[in-house]
């Protein structure tokens, strides 16, 4: 046996802090944005996000509006062109990202903390947020890009199924609008629509600032002030309307020239502050949320070879987000797979998990907690969630205790009240049965 150890100069091994939970610091900026900060001194970099309550749920009768507004921010700001903005970031190795879903519009910056790099990245980022120009020529190009994206959806059975699922799950609620919009709507958008949307929602009282990285408290305070200083104070977005339950079971079948049928099934699920959150989360972990060892995976993949992957999850949102389960199977097995899926869910709602299953789920969830906060980017995601949904600052500290407190009886009770196996929305997208 031989050993050839390579040792590099260690920069700061003294800070080998084995934090179980990140130390979250919280304050408000002068103009009313909530700030969530975790110092992470080990790497010479910082992650910054500004999250607005300005997702597609605010599109109104203009689907695609939120998405396009977000996509336009780095296309021109404060007189800088798209090329100049892109170059300003690239020259110092900084990464800028924009994303927009139903609840959140997120703008993120990752940069080195070295003075000049940091200064140039932060100045550019602040300018994008505060002074977008919405110039005409880039507007038309982005419009075409969104239209091409909608065409790409038409060739993806999964995307078709997802659209049909949301539109029918939320027939009269803003969550029924797809963030990518519709071709008709996207074609009619104008720069003026985007400016109006920006002015209403991209305001500091509607924003959360997240900072994770190698900066101290006073530096973090300056960052938060700088990225929000150019924003109008404005008002927080109003509460979204409540989601109506499905009145009856519904089955939608869309023909598509594919070898597999995509099956998506579900109903309105839970909100982020839902009192049933923990029993439903832990219960679903057992049913379909734990990958290869879940009940659904066992029934559909392990026992029957019907699919490569099947899952179920609750997506907690401002109002009731979807409870969704999905799989793909060859066309001739679609009926069988759907029957197994329904029966497994129905049985679980009726009988709940065993004590042994619950114990295993708790071990898995609580034992894996360290893995969920083992990088700056994961911590930043949690801060955005805590800030946006106004969860308590000790949410992560108490997470394992809340999971451990869940009982079999609570899971059964919560599933019986909240999941109705006889009123599921089911979407099938696929081709005809292949002749053997």
């Amino acid at each position, binding site marked *: 046996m031989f050993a050839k150890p390579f040792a590099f100069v260690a920069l700061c091994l003294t800070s080998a802090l084995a934090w179980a939970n990140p130390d979250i610091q919280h304050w408000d900026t002068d103009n009313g944005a909530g700030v969530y900060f975790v110092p992470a001194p080990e*790497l010479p970099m910082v992650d910054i996000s500004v999250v607005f309550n300005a997702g597609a749920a605010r599109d109104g009768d203009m689907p695609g509006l939120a998405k396009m507004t977000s996509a336009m921010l780095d296309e021109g700001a404060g007189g800088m062109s798209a090329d100049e903005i*892109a170059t300003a*970031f690239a020259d110092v*190795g900084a990464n800028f990202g924009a994303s927009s879903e139903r609840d959140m519009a997120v703008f993120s910056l990752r940069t080195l903390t070295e003075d000049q790099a940091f200064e140039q990245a932060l100045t550019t980022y602040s300018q994008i947020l505060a002074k977008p120009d919405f110039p005409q020529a880039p507007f038309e190009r982005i419009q075409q890009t969104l239209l091409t994206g909608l065409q790409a959806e038409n060739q993806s059975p999964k995307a078709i199924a997802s659209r049909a699922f949301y539109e029918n799950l939320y027939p009269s609620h803003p969550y029924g609008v797809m963030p990518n919009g519709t071709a008709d709507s996207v074609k009619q958008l104008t720069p003026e629509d985007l400016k109006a949307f920006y002015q209403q929602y991209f305001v500091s009282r509607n924003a959360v600032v997240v900072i994770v990285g190698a900066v101290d408290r006073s530096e973090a305070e300056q960052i938060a002030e700088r990225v929000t200083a150019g924003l109008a104070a404005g008002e927080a977005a109003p509460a979204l309307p409540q989601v109506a339950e499905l009145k009856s*079971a*519904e089955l*939608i079948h869309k023909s598509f020239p*594919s070898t597999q049928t995509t099956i998506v099934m579900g109903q309105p699920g839970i909100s982020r502050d839902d009192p049933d959150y923990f029993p439903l989360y832990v219960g679903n972990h057992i049913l379909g949320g734990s990958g290869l060892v879940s009940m659904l995976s066992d029934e559909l993949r392990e026992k029957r070879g019907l699919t490569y992957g099947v899952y179920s999850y609750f997506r907690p949102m401002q109002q009731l987000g979807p409870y969704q389960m999905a799989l793909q199977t060859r066309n001739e097995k679609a009926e069988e797979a759907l029957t197994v899926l329904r029966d497994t869910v129905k049985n679980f709602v009726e009988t709940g998990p065993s004590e042994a299953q619950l114990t*295993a789920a708790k071990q898995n969830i609580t034992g894996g907690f360290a893995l969920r906060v083992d990088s700056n980017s994961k911590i930043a995601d949690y801060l955005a969630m805590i800030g946006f949904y106004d969860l308590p600052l000790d949410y992560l500290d108490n997470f394992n205790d809340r999971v451990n407190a869940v009982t079999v009886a609570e899971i059964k009770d919560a599933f019986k009240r909240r999941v109705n196996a006889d009123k599921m929305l089911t979407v099938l997208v696929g081709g005809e*049965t292949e002749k053997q």
Partner: protein
Amino acid sequence: MQMQKLKILAWLAMLIPGLALAQVSEFELENGLKLIVKEDHRAPVVVSQVWYKVGSSYEHNGITGISHILEHMMFKGTENLEPNEFSQIIADNGGEHNAFTGRDYTAYFQKLHKDRLEVSFKHESDRMRNLIIDSAELIKERDVVAEERRMRTEDNPKAQLRESFNAAAFMSSPYHHPVIGWMSDIHHYQADDLRDWYQQWYAPNNATVVVAGDVEPKTVLELAKKYFGPLKPEQVAELKPQTEVAQKGLREIKVKAPAELPYLMMGWKVPVVTTVAEDKAWEPYALEVLAGILDGGNSARFARELVREQQVATNVGAGNSLFSRLKDLFVIAGTPANGKSVADLEQAIREQLQRLKDEPVTEQELARVKAQVVADTVYEKDSVFYQAMQIGMLETIGLDWMVGENYVDNVKQVTAEQVQAVANKYFVDDRLTIGELVPQPLDGSRPAVTTGDTHVR
């Protein structure tokens, strides 16, 4: 302004040596198993990966994809564990685990609290030599893999093109066939095929164990000796070279599939770090910088000129294959913008390449690409998993993990003249394969049993 940018770059260059927070230790057990430990004490977690030198490029026709389905079967029980029991044990220990198969490797991993590393070693060492391949389980798993193939390839028009494109670009090289295997091969694996494959490649002297995270190398070594140490080494077969025949002219293929959007792929045969001659060792890195000039983010030439200025592409990307076991492709691929054709996009790409051949890239662009590479090496350190991946992949394709540590230095040494030189040498039609996705109607192309959409309450 330009001076300032260059100053930043100089600072970034100095940053790297001090940045190596992590210590790397390398060991080899008596049975030939390699162990590499990378310390990262930021969080109380550990990533454990076992890498085998086997993948689809080790396969021949008739059994394509066998490395991949064997990876599936590795979860189906050993002399000591029931099918799926390993997954349950990892779950009970609060861990995550999975596996992946590529052209040049098969790897298994666990992510765990740092105190649970032993669980990983105990069962990874078990399934390295004691796997049971049961015929009934295999027949079920063939169905699962067939579903995986339908999902990834059959019902995805771009993936169909990619598969045919590789099969056209590579004739005798095993990069010809897909990692997941051809469908008819998937349907016909027999238990004995897998047993032979397992026996041949799954052995301590054909494996590298990579551990990254909040661990002490000595403790990890002791654990490795305890669990992997007793395993018997295997006579590992010498791999046939399967050298790619010389290409003698432009190759073009078309794939028709139900789709709305056309897609273009162009690939040139290029040397990689493993295959390049010693005096040309800089060439793969020059190609790497060239890829950055074209597609290194939103400020690079493709985004700036093809997407924003000429509006000929909705998206277009360039990718160099630096690290693979065999000669590979430099690929440029994209979707034409609305109202533009695949031919328009190809023409625009060719003009870009001609410019790289005619003019050296500007110092500013070169500096920008290098600044991004330097920054990315800092950002990558935020992921323990990525750090372990990098080490395992390099070792398994036959390079030293140190090659990864030297990546930034090698990129930084590339000059504008070198970028121009590789552009002229490699972007020639005799090395080129072009693939085009030709969209077919999404409705009415096949008679449907249903009469269109149905909606039942």
